[in-house]
Each structure stands twice: as C-alpha cells, then as structure tokens.
C-alpha cells in the first residue's frame, strides 16, 4: 500500500525555487499563498548553507486533523492529507498546530479577514469530482488521478525533492547516499544543523516520575 511522502535532500537543493514556481503554476495558487517554499539556513555562509523545500508533509498522525474544530480533514487511502474547503471556517487552528507552517490563508477581505485554508494537496485535488473545474478552482490540479506525481517533485532539476510512496523514495535516497560514498552522517540532524560544539553530549534522559498524575 502506497503511503505518499516528500523527501528533501539538503545536499542537493540549490535554492532555485523551481518547486515553488512549479506548484504555483500547476495549481494556479493565488497571490499571497505559498503551498511550498524553500527554507535556507546559514544563508550566505560559504560551505554551511543548506536549503530544503517545505510544504505539507502529509503526516501519518496529522496535528491539523487533530485540532480542526469542524473536522474538515481526511486522509486518502494512499496517505495524502486533504481537506474540504466547503467546511473550513478559516479559524487558523491548523496553522498553529502544523510544525511545518503548511496551512496558508488567503486575505479574503479588509481588516485581515482570513479566507478558507489552502495547503499542498500532493497534487491530489480534493473532495470534488476528479479533474473537474470545481476541483481545480478550489484545490488545484489532480495529478495523482492522471497517474502522475506532484509537479514540484517532478520539476525539481537536481532531484533534491523526491515525492511518492515513502518506501520507494527512501530506497532511491538510500542508493544515492551509498553511491556518494558517504555514510549515514549524510542525512539527519547533524547535516541540517551542524555537528554542534566539540565534545557536546546528547541531553540525558530525565527519569520519569512514577505514579504521577497528569
């Protein structure tokens, strides 16, 4: 069973913003809404600059889904987290809950009024008739229904952004890392945020109090 995920290779991302542009163009995302964006750390520091492309990560246990007061989120059979814009009230709880800042809100009027939430759909549309005009206007293109993958991943020039079944893209990434000749230090916290101070130790585990009331 496919479980759709994105995977970003920080070693390869060149901050070209091709994924952002592809997403904008493919889904005709309105001005002010960015379903995908490239985040760079150590910007301008030679040799230490790293970029990753961030959008909805289609969490297996999605916080947005947990906090939504009108229960407008659902997960498809292939693991894509989508929502019904007809139900969304634009409260913004999902934005506060999401660790990736994926939910976006168009400026729907004066005085900072928020419109209905918009986010990455993994190019899987939404709860309207597949490939219909209504689906495109509300959610964007449904590429999965066309047997394709998200436009951002397919357009990535360096193939830093991989999209698809988690097992398959993890295998692609693993083979790539082995071919590079570097070990497991290539991915993970150390690569993204540096090795830390010399001699730094990981924080000790705090003993859990027994019989404590929560």
């Amino acid at each position: 069973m496919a479980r759709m995920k994105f995977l970003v290779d920080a070693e390869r991302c060149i901050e070209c913003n091709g994924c952002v542009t592809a997403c904008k163009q493919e889904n005709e995302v309105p001005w002010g809404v960015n379903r995908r964006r490239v985040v760079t750390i150590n910007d301008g520091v030679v040799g230490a600059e790293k970029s990753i492309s961030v959008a909805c990560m289609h969490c297996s246990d999605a916080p947005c889904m947990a906090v939504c007061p009108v229960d407008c989120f659902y997960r498809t059979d292939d693991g894509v987290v989508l929502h019904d814009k007809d139900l969304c009230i634009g409260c913004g709880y999902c934005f506060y809950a999401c660790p990736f800042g994926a939910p976006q809100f168009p400026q729907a009027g004066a005085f900072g009024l928020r419109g209905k939430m918009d986010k990455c759909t993994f190019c899987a549309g939404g709860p309207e008739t597949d490939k219909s005009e209504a689906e495109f206007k509300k959610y964007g293109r449904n590429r999965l229904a066309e047997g394709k993958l998200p436009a951002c991943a397919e357009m990535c020039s360096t193939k830093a952004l991989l999209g698809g079944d988690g097992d398959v893209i993890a295998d692609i990434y693993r083979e790539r890392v082995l071919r590079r000749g570097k070990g497991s230090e290539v991915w993970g916290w150390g690569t993204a945020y540096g090795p830390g101070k010399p001699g730094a130790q990981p924080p000790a585990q705090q003993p859990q109090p027994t019989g404590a009331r929560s």
Partner: protein
Amino acid sequence: MKKLLMLIAVFGLAACGEPDQVVVYKQGKYQGKPDTRPWDNEPLALGGSAKWTKGDRASWETQIKARQMTQHEDKRIYQ
C-alpha cells in the same frame, strides 16, 4: 436547630469534592464530502503514458511506482 444546621453544612460541603478533571481527547470524524480515489479514474486518453485499469488499485500503484522511478537518475541513465 443545631442538628438542622449541621445537616445543611454537611450537604453544603458535599459539593466541595476533588474529582479528577482530565481532558479526554476525542478523535473527530471527517464531516465533509466523500472523495473519489485516483484509481477510479480513466487513464488520460490523449498523449498520456499512464496506463492502468480503471478501479484496479494495484495497476494504478504499478503505474505510480514506474513514475517514481523516473526520479532515480541512475536508473534513468542506465536504461
């Protein structure tokens, strides 16, 4: 009178318990419209390389997997 006052006091204090107040998380249920599944669509009729049988999830996944492997540059080069 004294007994009555004591009775009132006992009943009055009965409300001052210390029951556990724990927030219990309740999983919500999707309230929106049902969505169709990608494999329930016809493959693109014109110019598409996508091929699967309508309604057959396994054939759609085979198509998607083939598409995913185009992201693997080593496989693309050696083909």
